[in-house]
């Protein structure tokens, strides 16, 4: 068997996505609390608290600056949690994938379904933050709705990357490495809280390699207004990270489960 062959994308994957959304519906209370609660805390706490001292940032109220960045970082963390803790739980302790693989579903279908589900959860989080930001009056206009397909794409990207970690993991503690070494630095450095051009020059170049930088570069002008520059570059970077993550995770999960 060739573990390295390119993944096949089939409509069968929707059975996996459907399973996840049915489970999500059962736990909708805590899910919605998570979607609204966390961004509201950030926006009110930091936006009003810090915003009082900061005033404007990059030519816009700090609350608008923050909201348009948080929508990207929340998409990242939502998809990352789903792609790691949830995917790993279904793959290892819960044996859900084993049950699925006794049917015509293959590893490729399962991970396509999971990745689309990561995008879907990021989309839910994006809708919640956009609603809160609109109520706070920091959304620039109807063009902000374009941010929704973008957060879906951000979810695909970070979901794909997180699944690589799941494929390597032998326990939950392993995920701490990825959080401390990848997710938290991106959260701090990628322009969510301040513009990246305020970083030292060397660091500015480095953060351009991070997918969250490109995610924020799209969500900020779409939500808070301003010119969206080089959208194809940003989309390309997210697709590249997500696509590579997906391919690597498919190969690793094949090696892990087809023994």
């Amino acid at each position: 068997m060739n573990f390295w062959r390119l993944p096949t994308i089939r409509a069968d994957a929707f059975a996996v996505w459907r399973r996840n959304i049915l489970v999500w519906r059962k736990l909708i209370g805590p899910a919605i609390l998570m979607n609204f609660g966390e961004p509201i805390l950030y926006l009110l706490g930091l936006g009003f608290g810090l915003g009082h001292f900061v005033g404007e940032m990059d030519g816009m109220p700090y609350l608008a600056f923050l909201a348009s960045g948080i929508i990207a970082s929340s998409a990242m963390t939502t998809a990352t949690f789903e792609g790691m803790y949830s995917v790993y739980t279904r793959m290892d302790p819960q044996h859900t994938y084993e049950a699925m693989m006794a049917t015509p579903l293959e590893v490729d279908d399962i991970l396509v379904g999971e990745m689309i589900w990561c995008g879907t959860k990021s989309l839910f989080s994006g809708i919640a933050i956009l609603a809160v930001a609109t109520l706070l009056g920091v959304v620039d206009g109807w063009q902000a709705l374009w941010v929704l397909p973008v957060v879906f794409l951000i979810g695909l990207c970070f979901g794909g990357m997180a699944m690589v970690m799941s494929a390597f993991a032998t326990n939950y503690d392993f995920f701490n490495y990825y959080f401390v070494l990848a997710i938290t630095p991106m959260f701090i450095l990628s322009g969510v809280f301040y513009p990246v051009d305020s970083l030292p020059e060397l660091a500015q170049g480095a953060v351009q390699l991070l997918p969250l930088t490109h995610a924020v570069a799209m969500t900020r002008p779409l939500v808070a207004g301003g010119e969206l520059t080089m959208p194809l570059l940003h989309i390309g970077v997210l697709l590249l990270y997500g696509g590579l993550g997906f391919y690597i995770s498919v190969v690793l999960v094949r090696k892990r489960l087809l023994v």
Partner: protein
Amino acid sequence: MGLQPVVSAQGLVKTFGSHRAVDGIDFDIPRGSCFGFLGPNGAGKTTTLKMVLGLSPQMAGSLQVYGLQVPDKARQVRARTGVVPQADNLDPDFTVIENLRTYATYFGLNPSAIEDRLERLLEFAALEKRRDSKTDALSGGMKRRLIIARALINEPEMVVLDEPTTGLDPQARHIIWSRLNELKEQGTTLLLTTHYMEEAERLCDELVIMDNGRILDQGSPDTLVHRHVEPEVIELRGEKTRGYAESAEKHGCRVERLGSSLYCYTNDSGAFINELREIHGLTFMHRPTGLEDVFLKLTGRELRD
């Protein structure tokens, strides 16, 4: 077509590092039969089942299921096969009926179009009253029955069962056996692994005895018993048995020792039994031989870990 075996395997090999889990096995499974793999832990039984499903690609040899090459056509094979895994892998986020519905979608089936079938399966599993229970609330026997019902959702031609009754109490085990017999009567081919002799004797038309990745022998339970062991055995137990080996051999018995027990295999037990009856305080048991004796003879009596 009817005479073509459901599964046909030639020279299957699977190694994990230097360990040869399956070491060149051949077998054919006739349609409508119950075919068993009997062997100690680590014999290669589960690996063989996974190979049949295309979930553990073989390193050498050829394998056809329903005339399709595996693993190349494994998706088509699995679409027509039911699987009962060794460990419980029901979906704990769903109720009994939701487990069946969701599993149907993995086969591309629309659950609302097969409501009748789902009801029949609930009845088959005797779980009508537990349809809305979470699976965590089910007993071990109920979970097994649900897993078997789940394996029938695609109306499979063959059901593959990996140690279907391990860990169940006798009542639960008997219900499972009767359900499996019903399936067999309906013409479903059954492929099962077990290390329970009783299970193999009750269910299997044909079985292979496996050890260390090889097939030691194949046949119906009766054939195997006749081929390998004498019709009767006398088991002597306790510390006093030591001295009787010689006497048993004098009576023409083939003697085997396991711990402090002595097993005397014989074609004619009469004279030896009469002699034993004279001795006070000696515990012995006289019984017809069965698969267990064949199994122990072929795979040895050492402990397996």
